[in-house]
């Protein structure tokens, strides 16, 4: 032990070199970050002088100022990622332009953004709704997976001959049920076992992932698949209607309607008021005679159903069959979208759209510059890091 310590010590000096190499990306980012904040503040100043209505008033009203700060926070990660790209010999301006045109230049690209935003919006709702009741659901990932599993199972075993008007709603219900069951486990553990829902929902994500694996390698495996792990395809009648000239399907409409519904329930109904009271002050809620356990159970199960519907939409809208990786990472992205939207269902529509846009950008990154599409995770993390770092700016009223 002593000896190995000593070797480690003597090696430390030599290790500094490779450690620096390994950390160079990190350093590049911090450097870029510093540059970016500089840029952002400069543009903020330019904006202020440009927009200041009269010399008598100093600067901008606080609201506009905070809006500028927020704009800066959104711009900074792109600047930082740009520097990162420069290191790899890619012109960031060209790339951003092509990313932008691929997302907004034509119907197909825009459709792709909405396709990615749909599951993020739904799993975002699955995080936002319990958050308003004072609970943290990080289980959207697993709830989506089980929703996809159950809706596929229903589609290939019972609904193969069903007409669309019956089959699609039935599949939707099966998906919602799957997500609800999965969230129900978390809810029961919380209510009956007093276990923290953050940890249990997180662990259940892995159980869900392997449950899907179990089924696509076993009972749900397509006999005609030459040993590839996926389910048989669902019948064409069960596929969601698609907009001409794109892959965009009706799922986005379902998601937006559900977001509006969650908003309406939270802000316009007695139940929503109670949920918000519970979230704001659980003690007061209990004193007021709310059945707290039942409300927590209900909220989590409803959240699970929303995520489960996301799973169904992935199957009926995009994939057409269940794969082990169906919907991977959407649950976590949804959680982050909800956090960015301060758990507000309507704002969530915007943040899901933003994350969807970045996700699509990954494809054009790979096609146009030969960088692996996974590097878009870096850009996404940078966007979030800057938002996290600037968390207090411009949200004073709400916090």
């Amino acid at each position: 032990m002593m000896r190995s310590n000593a070797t480690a010590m003597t090696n430390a000096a030599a290790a500094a070199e490779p450690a620096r190499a390994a950390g160079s990306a990190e350093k590049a980012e911090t450097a870029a970050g510093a540059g970016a904040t500089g840029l952002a503040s400069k543009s903020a100043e330019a904006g202020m002088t440009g927009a200041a209505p009269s010399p008598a008033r100093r600067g901008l009203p606080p609201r506009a100022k905070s809006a500028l700060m927020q704009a800066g926070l959104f711009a900074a990660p792109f600047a930082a990622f740009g520097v990162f790209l420069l290191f790899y010999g890619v012109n960031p301006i060209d790339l951003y332009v092509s990313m932008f045109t691929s997302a907004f230049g034509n119907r197909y690209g825009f459709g792709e953004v909405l396709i990615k935003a749909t599951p993020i919006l739904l799993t975002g709702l699955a995080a936002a709704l319990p958050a308003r009741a004072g609970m943290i659901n990080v289980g959207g990932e697993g709830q989506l997976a089980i929703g996809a599993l159950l809706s596929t199972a229903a589609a290939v075993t019972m609904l193969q001959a069903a007409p669309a008007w019956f089959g699609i709603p039935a599949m939707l219900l099966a998906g919602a049920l799957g997500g609800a069951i999965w969230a129900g486990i978390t809810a029961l553990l919380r209510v009956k076992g007093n276990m923290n829902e953050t940890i249990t929902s997180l662990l259940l994500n892995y159980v869900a992932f392997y449950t899907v694996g179990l089924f696509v390698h076993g009972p749900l495996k397509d006999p005609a698949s030459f040993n590839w792990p996926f389910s048989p395809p669902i019948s064409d009648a069960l596929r969601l209607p698609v907009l001409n000239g794109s892959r965009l399907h009706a799922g986005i409409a379902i998601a937006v309607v559900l977001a509006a519904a969650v908003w309406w329930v939270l802000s316009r109904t007695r139940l929503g008021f109670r949920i918000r009271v519970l979230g704001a002050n659980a003690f007061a809620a209990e004193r007021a005679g709310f059945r707290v356990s039942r409300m927590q159970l209900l909220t989590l199960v409803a959240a699970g159903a929303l995520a489960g519907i996301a799973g169904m939409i992935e199957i009926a809208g995009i994939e057409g069959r269940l794969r082990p990786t169906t919907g991977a990472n959407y649950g976590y992205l949804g959680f982050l979208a909800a956090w960015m939207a301060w758990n507000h269902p309507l704002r969530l529509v915007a943040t899901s759209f933003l994350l969807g846009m970045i996700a699509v950008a990954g494809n054009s990154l790979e096609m146009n510059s030969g960088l692996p599409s996974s590097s878009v995770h870096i850009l996404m993390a940078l966007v979030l890091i800057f938002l996290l770092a600037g968390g207090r700016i411009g949200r004073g009223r709400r916090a």
Partner: protein
Amino acid sequence: MIADILTGAVRSGTSVLFAVQGELVSERAGVINLGTEGAMLAGALAGFATTVWTGSPWLGALAGGTGGMLIALLHAFLVISRGANQLATGLTLMFLGMGLTAFFGRKFVSESIVGFNPTPIPLLSDIPFIGNVLFNHDPLTYVSFALVPLIWFALFRTRLGVIIRASGEREDALFASGMNPKLVRYGAVLAGGFLAGLGGAQLSIAYTHSWVENMTAGRGIVAVALVIFAAWKPLRAAVGAWLFGAAQALQLTVQQQGYPISPYFLFMAPYLITLIALLAVEFRKKSRMPEALGKVFTGSPGGAG
């Protein structure tokens, strides 16, 4: 066969053990770090890459720890200095770790290394049964054996330990006695990140001898859960890590013996066992969370906090 499973438990549990001890220190100081997953990935790649370049697994281990520490530094900055939401930050860093390692790790996928190999300890490894289970492992595993009592001693028998625990329990008391709780937390989170990175490096340079994209497969998250299962006690956390390892080893053994059980049941087993163990701990009401962590888990209804 039992000896095989136990040996496997220690072998595959070691990476989690490092991470779980690191997370424990960090949580004792009042910071939960879901970014442990990202730190482990960073450690796994940094360790592997360094071992490829230098041929020295010890340098690799050190680089792995440093890699994990850099991710943890970001977590510490955002959470402690900028007051960001701990869970959202942790998840973000998990994505950062996945993105960065997928990006930089691409050319290491096909590389191979010698790395650490099991080196039996003379005499001790000759003890029947126990000798093979405990004393026929890679050097990092022996380090992990020493780490557990060390962490316990540091946390519960030294002044430093009192300070760390105070920053997780009674921040104001620490402040009143003239110390800076933020600084203590920084230290604890960085130490936690180093250990998580070391765990990741153990995975890539001692356990699998390879780099695969996203190779930690949720071990960092499991580490976070195990800390709670262990009621923030180092020895129990080690047992939890080995339990997780045992479930993995069981899965290999069952496959080798050709039992007709789907491997997917066994893949699930470690996570299910962790859940059941958590439930058992909860029912015995023996667990007490550091107070500062309670605030993280209650969350704020606006979600802004």
